[in-house]
């Protein structure tokens, strides 16, 4: 047995022992469209993971991680998802905030924030998008003003689409710190506690009825002087680097859950006779094909191939999986036929209904389809850049 296979077995065994008892309820929960499900138990699960040493396994050992190789991280994600491991409440801290602090934080910031992420006791959310800064992320209007007495930053403005803000302890905020600056200049990257009087969190009820997103309002809220990452003015650089830390390893876990959804669709089709329809069969086979291709694409993206072609094709990954998943949602509903419209106490049906509705967001968040195609055309093919307006 190779090292990776032995490791895989270790993960599988650990999950089999620990995702039981009170945690059994969490199996396959908290995923797409129900990120706000069973929050307290899922936080407890994060601490269970931490006790087993399974939070932040990809971080270097000196920062408290396991220093896993890419292949081992993939194996971990796959086995976690295969076992039905719930959606990770600690994902933002582990995948985005932690790596950003490791790269750009001061020693003091690392000492202060990494342990809470590692132990599953402090949860983070991301303050990026604003009502007028979606795809046009440079159009940030939230302001940070220096308090000359304390050196703290006083923040006013609104962030939106903040996943799980209502269940988080900290938010990282990109704000404009230089009066009159525009675009990517004059931004600052701040770490802010959410439990302070001048922060208000309003849930946004979404298409499937849940509310994992929020609007976060800042009205003179405070970020401590020592909670600036990088220098004032470095906000864009830090923000972009943070997005780059998501190398896509977690997407292999996501693919495992896609496979489970496809299996569910096949199972239901066999039960309700949809599997007798030649057209449905072809669509299921096509979905199977797309998922296989996606898996190999992810493996190519995660490889060390630095050729222009490999980098160009890596740019297609988000477009690839999000559109595949959106189509799968429709296929699931077509397989369910009239049952698709009826809400019932059936976890399989519920999962597919939620997936159908929430998958509409897949092609919007993290860069819409249209933005993805611009990126592929401009960065991948070197085609001319979109002109910018003056408004």
């Amino acid at each position, binding site marked *: 047995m190779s090292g990776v296979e032995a490791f895989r077995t270790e993960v599988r065994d650990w999950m089999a022992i620990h995702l039981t008892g009170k945690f059994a309820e969490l199996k396959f929960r908290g995923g797409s469209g129900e990120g706000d499900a069973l929050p307290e138990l899922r936080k407890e699960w994060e601490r269970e993971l931490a006790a087993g040493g399974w939070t932040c396994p990809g971080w270097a050992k000196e920062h408290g991680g396991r220093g896993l190789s*890419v*292949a081992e991280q993939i194996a971990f994600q796959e086995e976690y998802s295969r076992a039905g491991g719930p959606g990770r409440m600690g994902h933002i801290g582990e995948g985005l905030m932690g790596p950003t602090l490791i790269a750009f934080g001061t020693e003091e910031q690392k000492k202060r924030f990494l342990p809470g992420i590692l132990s599953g006791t402090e949860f983070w959310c991301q303050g990026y998008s604003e009502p007028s800064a979606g795809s046009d992320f440079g159009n940030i209007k939230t302001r940070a003003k220096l308090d000359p007495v304390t050196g703290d930053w006083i923040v006013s403005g609104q962030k939106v689409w903040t996943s799980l803000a209502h269940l988080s302890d900290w938010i990282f905020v990109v704000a404009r710190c230089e009066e009159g600056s525009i675009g990517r200049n004059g931004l600052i990257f701040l770490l802010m506690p959410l439990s302070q009087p001048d922060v208000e969190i309003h849930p946004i009820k979404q298409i499937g009825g849940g509310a994992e997103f929020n609007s976060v309002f800042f009205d003179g809220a405070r970020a401590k002087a020592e909670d600036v990452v990088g220098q004032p003015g470095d906000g864009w650089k830090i923000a972009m680097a943070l997005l780059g830390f998501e190398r896509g390893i977690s997407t292999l876990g996501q693919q495992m859950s896609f496979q489970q959804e496809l299996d569910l669709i*096949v199972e239901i*089709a*066999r039960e309700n006779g949809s*599997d*007798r329809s*030649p057209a449905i*069969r*072809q669509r*299921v*086979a*096509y979905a*199977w*094909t*797309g998922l*296989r*291709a*996606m*898996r*190999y*694409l992810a*493996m*190519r993206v*995660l*490889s*060390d*191939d630095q*050729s222009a072609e*490999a980098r*160009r*094709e890596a*740019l*297609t*990954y988000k*477009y*690839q999986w999000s559109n595949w998943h959106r189509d799968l949602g429709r296929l699931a509903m077509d397989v369910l036929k009239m049952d698709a419209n009826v809400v019932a106490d059936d976890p399989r049906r519920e999962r597919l209904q939620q997936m159908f509705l929430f998958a509409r967001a897949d092609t919007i968040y993290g860069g819409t389809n*249209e933005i*993805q*195609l*611009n990126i*592929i*055309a*401009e960065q*991948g*093919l070197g*085609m*001319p850049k*979109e002109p910018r307006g003056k408004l």
Partner: protein
Amino acid sequence: MLEFTPDQQMIREEAQRFLREQSSSEAIRRVVDAGASHDAGLWASISRELGWCAMAIPEAFGGLGLGATEVVILMELTGARLACVPFWSTVCMAARLIEAAGSEAAKTKYLGAIAAGEMAVTVALGDLSAANPMSGTSVRAVKSADGYVLTGKVAQVIDLAAADLVIVPAQLEDGATALFALERDTGQVILPLKVIDGTRPVASLELASVAVSTTQRIDAGGLTDAAAQSALAFANLGLAAEQLGAAQGALDVTLAYVAERVQFGRTIASFQAIKHRCAELVVDIAEARSLVFGAAAGLGGMDAAESALEVSGARVLASDLQFRAAEEAIQLHGGVGFTWEYDPHLYFKRAQASAALLGSREAHLDRIAASVFADGGLK
């Protein structure tokens, strides 16, 4: 983790450079306009000088013993340049069929000749558009005193006029399928067909009581289903790679054109409507390429049935992709896109001709569905 080795990367770069020079638009047009069987000069370079035919042939038979990935790399590149050579027929169809089903004597003789670049070979499949074209041939082999007598017609054989040897699956009197090898001018009648896609010539084969010796029967005790499936998977994989390459070739031609064509005071490449359509092709190319190379890496490794499904999936993606890339090439070239002078029509015609080859997308999807639903398919 699914990346090319330095050797594979080198094969790829050198082949790309070579084909860009040697299989130019002018070279393709010389073959197409003359209705030639193939580009003989290019084939001589590929088979004899560059040794491409030896890549996947086992070392025991004079080959290099490399895997499917190397072949797929070359197939993709010959596809990109629509190279008019019997490379796919020889390497992806015939050689693999001989390897899977041939007797030791046949392997020694023919695989050795293929590896040395001395022989172009094709296979006279019964029904080229069937997903399982090995069975269902109408050619009959009747035992005679000193061999067999072959009778029957095969409507379409790829690269038949270019081939030095044609392998003919034929049905024996007991219903089993045997393979016969016919060298040039040994009694068969070859009629080149007038085809729309002139880059891949096709001819019909007629066998009117052709007497063959027992040594011309090259299978080792009948063509088994497993051997046929193994050969077909390899042929389909090579074809998918070629289709993928042709899509990339069509996109390359299109990108060059839209970067130069100016309307409304700007290159048409600057219009988002154009950019997005080119980007969508990149998405589909990335998808198909991933499955083609993923399947190639798995071929011979994981279980054969699973591997064959991935190959079927690769054919579906590559057929869709190739047609779309070719039709977009015509559309985005505007008026000149449907002239004979510009290249899009070459890619377009090849796309349609390839899509039907060795099983339609529907047939391949049916095969996948039968496995996913584990019910053997709809009856």
